[in-house]
């Protein structure tokens, strides 16, 4: 299925595209399989990947990565994969445990309603940029679940601001809003993939606001939906491309 998806998206599995902001939304099903897909796609493509994991642990990604033939532990040791453990930060924030190392907790906004996600952005930046603040080679920023932030009380606006800066960092010369007219000469070094939950059956105002914000940012939108015809064991859902 992933091969077909690559073809539809026009993604070459050896040379993943640059300058794309891929937004994944899921409704009544779980779209995280696409996160795994893009993770392995870009790791295989030899990119640097920064995985901002807010929903799952490294062990989880590692276990799945092994199945997909992408040893993440190795990639991490080589420095190809930078892993930001959002769960751990959240826990520290919750228990007020002293932060290991220097600097403030990147998820300070979870406690302090006035704080922004700027520390998180700074962390992302130090993980993937050289000292001059530019990317070293092609780099993917992968955010596994932005809705977690909303669930934890960060406003959609703050998340949007954070993603705006990530976008400036990763795809500053992002071209074109239409692939037909996309100009291939001038491309960014980075790409972003992120996931937002958008369940159709419940009205979650903040989440849908976040989704709309992200939809304005994104260049590719993959919508994963549960089957409207009901539960089926073997078919998980349909995915649409916008």
């Amino acid at each position, binding site marked *: 299925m992933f091969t077909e998806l690559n073809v539809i998206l026009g993604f070459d599995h050896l040379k993943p595209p640059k300058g794309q902001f891929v937004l994944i939304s899921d409704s009544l099903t*779980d779209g*995280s*399989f696409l996160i*795994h897909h893009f993770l392995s796609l870009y790791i295989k493509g030899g990119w640097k990947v920064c995985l901002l994991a807010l929903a*799952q*642990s*490294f*062990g*989880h990604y*590692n*276990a*799945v990565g*092994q*199945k*997909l033939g992408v*040893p993440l*532990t*190795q990639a991490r*040791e080589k420095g190809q994969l930078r892993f930001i453990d959002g*769960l*751990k930060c*959240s*826990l520290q*924030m*919750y*228990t007020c445990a002293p932060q290991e190392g220097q600097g403030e907790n990147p998820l300070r906004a*979870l*406690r302090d*309603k006035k704080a922004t996600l700027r520390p998180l952005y700074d962390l992302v930046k130090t993980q993937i940029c050289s000292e001059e603040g530019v990317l070293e080679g092609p780099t993917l920023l992968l955010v596994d679940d932005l*809705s*977690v932030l*909303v*669930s*934890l*009380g960060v406003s959609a606006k703050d998340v949007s601001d954070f993603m705006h800066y990530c976008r400036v960092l990763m795809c500053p010369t992002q071209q074109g809003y239409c692939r037909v007219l996309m100009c291939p000469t001038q491309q960014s070094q980075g790409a972003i993939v992120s996931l937002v*939950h958008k*369940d159709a*059956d*419940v*009205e*979650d*105002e*903040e*989440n849908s606001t976040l989704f709309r914000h992200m939809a304005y940012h994104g260049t590719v939108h993959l919508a994963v939906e549960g089957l409207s015809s009901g*539960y089926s*064991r*073997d078919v*998980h859902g349909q995915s649409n491309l916008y």
Partner: protein
Amino acid sequence: MLRGALCTTYCPEILKLATQSGIFVYRQPSWKRKYSPPQVGDSLFCGDNMAASTGKGGVTSFQKKSRTKTLQIPGTRPSSQGNQLLVSTGVPSLDHIIGGGIVVGTVLLVEEDSFGNYARLLMKYFMAEGIMTRHPLLLSSAELHPKQLLRDLPAPVSDDIGKAALHQEDVSSEKNVEKEATMKIAWRYQNLRTEQPELGAFSKFGHYYDLSKTMSSEMIDTAPSRLFYLPDELPLEEQGMWNSIRNPAYVKLLQSIQDVVREGQFDLTVPQPKDVSRTVLRIGLHSLGSPLWGEQDGGTSHDTSLPHFLHALRAVLRTSLTACLITIPTHLFQDMAFTRRLEKLCDSVIRLESFAGSEKEQNPAYKDYHGLLYIKQLSQANSLLSYMPDCNDFAFKLRRKKFAVEKLHLPPELQDSQQREQDDPVAALKTPSTGCFSTSGKSKLDF
């Protein structure tokens, strides 16, 4: 009415089985035979931490498999794909439909039925199973004292009966063969799993319990347990006002959990001496998020205390040998979006809907059951996709001695055909609002 016919064929068999099944529980040898033992770093949730602590970082999956250090924890087993370590909920039929059991390192959320009776029962099963498998327990509650909960655990069915049941298992499988051979008319149903109505009755781990008896207090007292009773832990005056970001009750609870994890050596990030035998901590959080925990205005989306607790709890669980069962009275929450957010922060989610006090109690389609069970989400831990059950129509029933989950079947059609409902009963099931079609609806439809 083929479905009805099917039921009549199967039911007597099953009922017999169920009454005789004192089926026995703790069969470590048998799972050893059947499954390859779990491997450190590969099967465990926090594989990376484990690998790092034993100095195995950076090996490929291939190498890992060749160098296995078996991790044998009583009362656990690897999942069918071998990448998850499971513990039983204590209800084998429930284990079966959620993919084998609760994955170690994850949360099973039970959304409570409207009076909380069945959810409490599940909690008791979970705890009883922990005592039988010598898993340490952590039980919290704000309503009923955890001690009271523990005092009322169902008694395990003794081993003698268990062996008998084992024998019975063989006999019944023979019977099944016979039965299959004789299925000439309803031949299409021959390929169905024969143990269907008693899902997973012969599963390889998990104990069986007799609800009519309670577990002896000696057994309970020997089990290492940490009880968290909110009024004892946090005086009422300190529970009072809070700033909606951090509810002190949840903070206290999480601290207790962290303490137990650390002291009981369940933490996988800390290397343990080799001679210490590992075991799994069972955490049961009963009726979390009820008003007694200080959940304020029926769970509006602005209150992030509980979501943040669950997120932090996930962080703790992922790096430790723990399995967690939480029951939450989500029916108290007005905001569906809030419930959905909680669900997303847990790993597996089931919802219980009891017929007690609802019009479904009268519905003949449901007369064999006490409620419905919905699987809302299953754990994805360590795998690309979660386990997919065959169907999503489940019901539970509470007999004198046991609680069981079954696939929802319509009762056999025994009445005369002229009294048969005009509507497809399945359609009526799907839209519970038209539930009472047999009494009021029929008079309008048949004239």
